[in-house]
């Protein structure tokens, strides 16, 4: 019987996702729905399954209930195993201390015991806020071939945007010479994706040293990686080619959802969800197929199950159980599960969260060309005839004041 794992994944899922508010008001960012039927965390978890990684620790901290429910025993991702599988790893108390996760490195540090149980040769560190399809095994092969201590996945970004990212400067063999966090004058366009592979012994050594350092902020990007570079460890960049988006802001979240509808074939890197060779797995709800009525007019959109559509839907992403009544119009919008859009209502360039009800003849948002994204938070009822101005973020408190 196999008593150890070759590679184990640690998925950082505890972040607050404050820039995605109000979508992250009640749920952790990785549990935020994406692409008509998925949640963000389905992407790294499915990548693990598709890459042959069967042991994943999910580090949770911020509002974990819905995320925990969603993960369950990990069966949607074939992670319900006797040896290995999915484990949710929250912060915990001991006799000596009781701490929240102080930073990404501290989160892993607190769960070194978990890593040691599976005694892996390599540890893959992932974050739960990116949409991408990546074969981690190819990266692992590179890591092994390079005899690396650490391999960092990078993506080629637009030179104009490079100063928004952590940038790796490498030699021609990919060895990292320098790492700059959000440099004003970037020397390269290789941005870190927040995906790391460490050889386990090196990882544990640096985590322990980092924990012992009172001046450290216990963060991989700020502390561990720079320290390893200083000490001249073998660190390599692994260039990933393909669709990759950080969905950390409302605007980027909206735009990645639009990419999920289908991107122009001329684009080099496209997000393709309907891909039997690299499925994205998810936990299913028990919904019947969608029904489009006699007055339905749906174009250029993707839709989850259980929807009942009698109105017009154009270039939008509709999640499960969305109802669009006759005479209602949805354009350039993301409508999350259970939302009801009543007759005569018009929703444009908006994100409408779960179980929102937009009553008759409301006007929500404005043209996408004007650039003001409108958000309606979870469970809100927008009363008949209300006009929600473009760019407004409607939360429960704001609704009361109206």
């Amino acid at each position, binding site marked *: 019987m196999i008593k150890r794992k070759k590679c184990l994944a640690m998925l950082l899922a505890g972040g607050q996702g404050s820039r995605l508010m109000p979508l992250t008001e009640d749920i952790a960012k990785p549990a935020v729905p994406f692409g008509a039927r998925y949640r963000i965390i389905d992407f790294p978890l499915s990548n693990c399954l598709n890459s042959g990684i069967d042991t994943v620790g999910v580090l949770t901290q911020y509002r974990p209930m819905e995320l925990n429910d969603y993960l369950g025993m990990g069966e949607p991702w074939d992670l319900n195993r006797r040896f290995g599988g999915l484990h949710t790893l929250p912060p915990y108390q001991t006799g000596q201390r009781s701490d929240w996760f102080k930073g990404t490195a501290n989160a892993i540090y607190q769960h070194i015991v978990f890593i040691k149980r599976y005694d892996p040769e390599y540890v893959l560190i992932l974050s739960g806020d990116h949409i991408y399809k990546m074969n981690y095994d190819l990266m692992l092969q590179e890591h092994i071939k390079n005899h690396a201590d650490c391999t960092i996945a990078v993506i080629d970004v637009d030179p104009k945007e490079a100063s928004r990212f952590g940038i790796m400067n490498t030699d021609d063999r990919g060895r990292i010479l320098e790492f700059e966090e959000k440099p004003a004058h970037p020397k390269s366009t290789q941005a870190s994706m927040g995906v790391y592979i460490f050889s386990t012994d090196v990882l544990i050594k640096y985590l322990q040293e980092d924990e012992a350092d009172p001046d450290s902020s216990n963060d991989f990007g700020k502390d561990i990686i720079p320290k390893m570079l200083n000490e001249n460890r073998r660190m390599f960049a692994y260039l990933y080619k393909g669709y990759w988006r950080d969905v950390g802001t409302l605007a980027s979240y909206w735009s990645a959802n639009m990419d999920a509808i289908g991107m122009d074939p001329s684009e080099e890197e496209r997000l393709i969800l309907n891909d039997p060779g690299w499925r994205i797995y998810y936990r299913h709800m028990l919904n019947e197929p*969608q029904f489009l009525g006699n007055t339905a007019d749906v174009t250029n959109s993707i839709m989850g199950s259980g929807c009942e559509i009698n109105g017009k839907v154009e270039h939008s992403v509709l999640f499960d159980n969305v109802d669009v009544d006759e005479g209602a119009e949805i354009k350039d919008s993301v409508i999350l599960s259970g939302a009801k859009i009543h007759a005569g209502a018009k929703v444009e360039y908006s994100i409408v969260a779960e179980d929102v009800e937009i009553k008759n003849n409301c006007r929500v948002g404005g043209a996408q060309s004007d650039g003001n994204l409108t958000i309606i938070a979870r469970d809100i009822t927008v009363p008949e005839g209300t006009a929600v101005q473009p760019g407004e973020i409607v939360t429960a408190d704001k609704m009361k004041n109206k």
Partner: protein
Amino acid sequence: MDAAGIILADTGAVDVPELIRKRTLAAIPFGARYRLIDFTLSNMTNSGISSVGMVAREKYQSLMGHTGAGAVWDLERKRGGLTFLPPFSTEQNVNGLKRSRYNALLENESYLRRVKEKYILITSCTPVMNVDYNKMLQFHEAHNARMTIMYTTRPMNAQDGIARTWMDVDRDGRVLGIDITRQGKLGGHCAVGAFMMDREDLLDIMDSYHGQKNLSFRKDVAPALIEEGGVWAYGVDEIALYLDTLPGYLASSLSLLRSDVRQALFHSENGPVITKVSDSAPTHYGPHANVTNSLIADGAVIEGNVSNSIIFRGVHIGKDAIVSNSVVMQDSTVSDGARLNYAVLDKAVYINSDRILSGYITHPFFCKRDDRI
């Protein structure tokens, strides 16, 4: 609920040779993402039945592939759960056994002895319904019945000329007579293929026939019980969709486009219809899609025109294709410019560009699995 369920996967009063050529009756795809077994298993699990035996005699590969160990219905259990009951062939019984409910139970007598529930519910997978068996059990107990047979007051699309069980029922619900006929209407109560008995009583009755084979519940067991007044008819108002011929299958499929039928089947307070998951992508509607009055499953890609139709998972409808009044099953492709009217496409059918296929509601055009046109 103190009852075990027996599902007779290939028993039912149907005449759909097209659809069961390579699958058992219970595995017939229906309603864009289901198979018939889903409705029966969901009814059982929603009613709180946690021991289910599934009897299938042949062509049960697709059925087994679909149900697996029953996990999605919460039937993968240590106690009870889903038990697959394939033919129990011995030298004695392998030849010449008629397909009857009685023979099916006789072959699986050991399962009937093994389960511990007080009652046993025996059902086939047609017609399609969403019902609560708890209420049937209450009725059974309240009338101190030896056998309770379910009928519906709302049959839909039942086709003429199919042999069905009709019951003559008195004002209180006691069954006075039973008849199997293609003409129908002995008292107007049509059984829906589900009946309930006390498990021990059923075993005693089977014992009393001393292993005699080729008996029939309807012809042998029930009449004897009717004689002593022990058979009761339990009526439900739930819609029952019959799919006993190909036109009936098409008509019942298209009935799902009625909101009252969808409500009765998918939003019933009895519970949801549960099916195996396939991790399909969301349904994609292209820039020129034009879909009205249709039921569309996940994983479908629609670029053309669809009206009054049922579209299964993974189906691709090409640009300028026109699909009306049709059922297109899983993974089939209707290429650009092709036209279908009153057609039933089985799984993985490929219709080339600009082909025109048309049938009529009474005579649907059928393409069998893997056909290329």
